[in-house]
């Protein structure tokens, strides 16, 4: 069905920095309700792809459409208001604001405000999201008091406030203990159950494979393989990208 399949379409996306091709004619698509994993070795260009899709970087060429509407050329806040939300590779909290206020900022974006909630209802929603995500109970403490894992949850909480239909998570599990990792994996499943489509960059392949429906692997900005997690992980090109060929091993 065209509608489901063309939910997010990335077509020949290209980004050059001077002479360097960070992303080269990358194409993939996302079905509605899916969880797509984006993997690749360090420096493969994954975060660059996110930045291109979400408007933080201008693309050199190519097309990106979400539900038929083009995303390229738009500013980040405009893209958010179309129904995309993202988190970042490095956590980006507001360190001096309380957890409550950290999330509250998102209430003042057009997408949230279009719901027409009054102050009470908005406050209720903030508490709801904080609980769903699993933040500590004391929302009055400053974000600077939080550990890395909780800061990741905070970023996700803020992203959820804009009612995203498509959520892009950039290495949500990085730097987390195994308990924290499991918590976020569970959260990802729960969000997907609620109907949120997810595109996830992640290095922890084992965890990713638990939740991802499909995976796209890239290196040097180009697609290496796409398919089910099993297919991709065993694909020779992908193995080579991560581990190198037997020859390069020998000479190392």
């Amino acid at each position, binding site marked *: 069905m065209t509608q489901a399949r063309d939910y997010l379409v990335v077509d020949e996306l290209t980004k050059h920095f001077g002479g360097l091709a960070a992303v080269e004619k990358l194409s993939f698509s996302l079905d509605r309700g899916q969880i797509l994993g984006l993997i690749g070795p360090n420096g493969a260009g994954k975060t660059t792809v996110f930045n291109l899709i*979400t408007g*933080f970087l201008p693309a050199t060429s190519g097309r990106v459409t979400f539900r038929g509407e083009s995303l390229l050329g738009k*500013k*980040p*806040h405009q893209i*958010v*208001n179309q129904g995309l*939300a*993202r*988190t*970042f590779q490095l956590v*980006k*909290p*507001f*360190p*001096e*604001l*309380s957890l409550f*206020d*950290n999330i*509250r*900022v*998102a*209430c*003042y*974006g*057009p*997408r*949230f405000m279009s719901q027409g909630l009054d102050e009470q209802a908005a406050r209720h929603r903030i508490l709801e999201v904080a609980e769903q995500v699993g933040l500590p109970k004391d929302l*009055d*403490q*400053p974000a600077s008091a939080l550990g890395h894992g909780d800061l990741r949850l905070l*970023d996700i909480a*803020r*992203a959820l*406030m*804009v009612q995203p239909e498509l959520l892009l998570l950039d290495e949500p599990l990085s730097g987390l203990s195994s308990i924290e990792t499991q918590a976020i994996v569970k959260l990802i499943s729960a969000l997907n159950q609620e109907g949120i489509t997810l595109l996830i960059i992640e290095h922890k392949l084992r965890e990713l494979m638990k939740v991802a429906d499909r995976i796209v692997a890239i290196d040097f900005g180009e697609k290496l393989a796409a398919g089910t997690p099993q297919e991709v992980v065993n694909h020779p090109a992908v193995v080579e990208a991560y581990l190198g060929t037997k020859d390069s091993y020998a000479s190392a």
Partner: protein
Amino acid sequence: MLANLKTPAQRRTAIFYGLIMLGFYFVPVFSDNFYLLSVFTTAYFYIIFATSWDVFAGYSHLMNFGHALFIGLAGYLTAFVDLHLGLPPLLVLPMCAVLCGLLGMFIGYLTLRMQGPYFAIITMAFAAVAYESAIMFSEYTGGEEGIPGIHPLTDSLIGDYYFVLVIMSLIFLFLLWFTRGRWGLVLKAISQNEDSVLASGINTAWVKIRAYSISGALCGIGGSVYAYSLTHVGPTSMEQVLSTTILIMAMVGGMGTITGPFLGALILVLFNELSRDMEEYRLLIYTVMVVVIIFFAPRGIVSWGQPIARAFKLGGKRGQAGS
């Protein structure tokens, strides 16, 4: 806005500043000493300048080193309109607000992508260009002497006093309302992590431009009243020292609070006057004091409010993050 006074700490703050403002209104009742009234009037001007500075620079942490640009610009416009067109202050003040507001939008737009140091430099540069231009185009601006003879606001000292006080009160209340609402929070968030604000769907450029515009407009109103009060405008209304002084007052008081610059301006103006007998050492002590305060209380005097309240056991739980 009263609904915002949820916590004991906020109620305490409101009472504190409410009492001070009330006190201001009663000063002429107890004294008609010219000197005293003019000292307070000067304080009110600096409160306007410092709080209007704060609403943009204090919240966004983009240090505006050229705020006096608006004071001078409004002053010159006031002079022209008053002397050549004879329009009354009630028309002139809004005109200055609009002009300075537009200029603020323009500068805000130009400087959108600039980081801290660049921003500081360009605000200084704009103010300096205006200053030099005022001196250069002396046929229009009266050169270094400026333009004298602006008509006074009212025909009595007390009338002038209340005029300035009322304007200051309105501006102060407006700024409190503005910053306690969403824009204060969003601006602060921008200063701490702009990407996350963008990722929440907020057009940060617009927020910054709007804040700078308001900052300029309000300062312009202050600048216009300032010119009326002095019945004179000149390049000194735009000089770097003035811009820096305003900034220092806001920092000493505590930037990003509106109440901080209020206190900072009040205290520093009063100190300046009260120490007149110290003659030559006055400015030295003033500047050393400023350095000391900034060094030991980087968040400004208002950050002492909670420890002081606790010391006096005035109630309220320990400080709220980000209130």
